[in-house]
């Protein structure tokens, strides 16, 4: 059936909802990151802009908006300009398949998670572009490291997702969430709504899988301890070095949005998504959004907490962790979960 003008407008409006959400969420997370970091370090962060600095994220965005837009003379103009947008598109496309509530999901396709893993590789291309087009040795270093890191951590991510999909039986995130409805005991982290004996056998493997998914997602987002591509103390700013003003803001927006995406996906796959942990109490369309965003924010906070505690891993240690620690463990879990589900 051919799309009418009405349906096009409705589609555009519906797909703009996550964009609005990203912008609001970025402001909140910027503020949260600075404040949490400050209080962990026994100091206060912004206090002057607004009460306790709540207007600071606005001030930051305004500052970035009015900065001079510099493009290095020897840079590859087209790629330089295109890179931030590709990174952002790669992140934003993932919002299409995250179910915010039981009635809203950007695009209810059967391939949900598969689409996500495919589209998040666009981010790698964007970063490589940004690093190469900057015509700066430090940027190239950062870009290449980042590409190697993100590609090698896609494997643990995909395997963990595969394990969750095996337990729930569908690739569509909306169906996965519906599978986990009914309370905290039905979450995939605790084995899913399966008989108790199966759950008990699945428990250690789902815990390990969830832990590995969280670690791999930290690497996907380029956060400490895996933030070598933007290691401030070595590479000035990695692939970001030559970017200023709004393009820089775009990269950062994409990073924060990515943080939310991976948290939301981890939460949807393992922790029940928009379903309430109390079963029927506090559930409904609006409550669903609250639960999803709340749970995802807990993991965003966890990511911030880890960033300000740990030193960063070196490139070869990063690779070692991915290929020689996370992937073998996941293969074992995959095999075990498959075995348990078959029996």
């Amino acid at each position, binding site marked *: 059936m051919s799309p009418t003008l009405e349906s096009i407008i409705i589609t555009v409006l519906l797909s703009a909802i996550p964009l609005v959400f990203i912008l609001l969420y970025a402001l909140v997370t910027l503020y949260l990151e600075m404040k949490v970091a400050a209080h*962990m*370090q026994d*100091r*206060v962060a912004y206090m002057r802009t607004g009460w306790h600095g709540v207007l600071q994220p606005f001030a930051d965005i305004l500052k970035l908006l009015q900065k001079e837009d510099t493009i290095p003379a020897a840079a590859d103009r087209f790629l330089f300009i295109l890179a931030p947008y590709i990174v952002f598109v790669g992140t934003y496309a993932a919002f299409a398949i995250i179910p915010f509530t039981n009635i809203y999901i950007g695009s209810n396709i059967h391939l949900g998670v598969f689409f996500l893993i495919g589209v998040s590789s666009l981010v790698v291309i964007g970063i490589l572009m940004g690093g190469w087009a900057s015509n700066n040795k430090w940027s190239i270093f950062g870009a290449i490291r980042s590409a190697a890191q993100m590609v090698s951590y896609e494997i643990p991510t995909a395997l963990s997702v595969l394990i969750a999909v095996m337990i729930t039986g569908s690739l569509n995130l909306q169906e996965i969430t519906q599978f986990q409805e009914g309370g905290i005991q039905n979450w995939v982290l605790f084995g899913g709504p399966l008989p108790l004996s199966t759950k008990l056998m699945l428990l250690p493997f789902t815990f390990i899988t969830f832990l590995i998914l969280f670690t791999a997602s930290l690497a996907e987002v380029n956060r400490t301890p895996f933030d070598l591509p933007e290691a401030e103390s070595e590479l000035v700013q990695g692939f970001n070095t030559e970017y200023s003003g709004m393009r820089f803001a775009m990269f950062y927006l994409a990073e924060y949005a990515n943080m939310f995406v991976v948290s939301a996906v981890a939460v949807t796959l393992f922790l029940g998504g928009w379903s309430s942990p109390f079963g029927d109490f506090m559930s409904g369309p609006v409550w669903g959004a609250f639960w999803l965003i709340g749970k995802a924010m807990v993991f965003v906070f966890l990511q911030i*907490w880890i960033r*300000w*505690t740990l030193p960063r891993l070196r490139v070869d240690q990063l690779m070692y962790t991915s290929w020689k*620690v996370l992937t073998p463990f996941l293969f074992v879990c995959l095999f075990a979960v498959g075995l348990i589900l078959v029996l």
Partner: protein
Amino acid sequence: MTAVATYFGNIFRSLYTVAVGMRITFKHLFVPAVTLQYPDVKLKMPERARNRLYVNIDDCIGCDQCSLACPVDCISIETIKSTADQDLGVTSTGHKKRLHVPKFDIDIGKCCYCGLCVYPCPTECIVMTDVYEFAEFDRHNLLYKFSRMTEGEIGEAETKLKKAEEEAAAKKAAAAAAAAAQPKPEPPKAP
């Protein structure tokens, strides 16, 4: 076998030390911050604080000791001798003032806040205060001029000094001429 043991040992140690570190930072989340909100809350300076210099020019006797002691030469002093009939008074520490001080400039931008100028001053007129908020927008405002003599007073003192010197020189010339006009005494006879 030890390779397997190290492998698992490493993984366990990683998780354990990461958890310990995270516990420490989490604890610190609830420790009250140590930041002082500066313009609203200011630290009290201890009594020996070495910040901006201040000169009580009424007590200055123009001895130039502080200027000589300064390692970066930020104090410049000019003095004019006073004549016998001028009475410049006494400082608060009892020293008699004998010199006008028309120029007492401290370039506080050059000052290194070492405090070496404070110790040699006989009248303790140059002190380091606890003022630390004296930033200026224009660098030339950092040249502090402490002398309060006006142009007229300086001109007066200079003319008085010149007159006194001329008189003294004239007297000396007259005395020399008078000595030359007298008959020379006989040279002693050789034995």
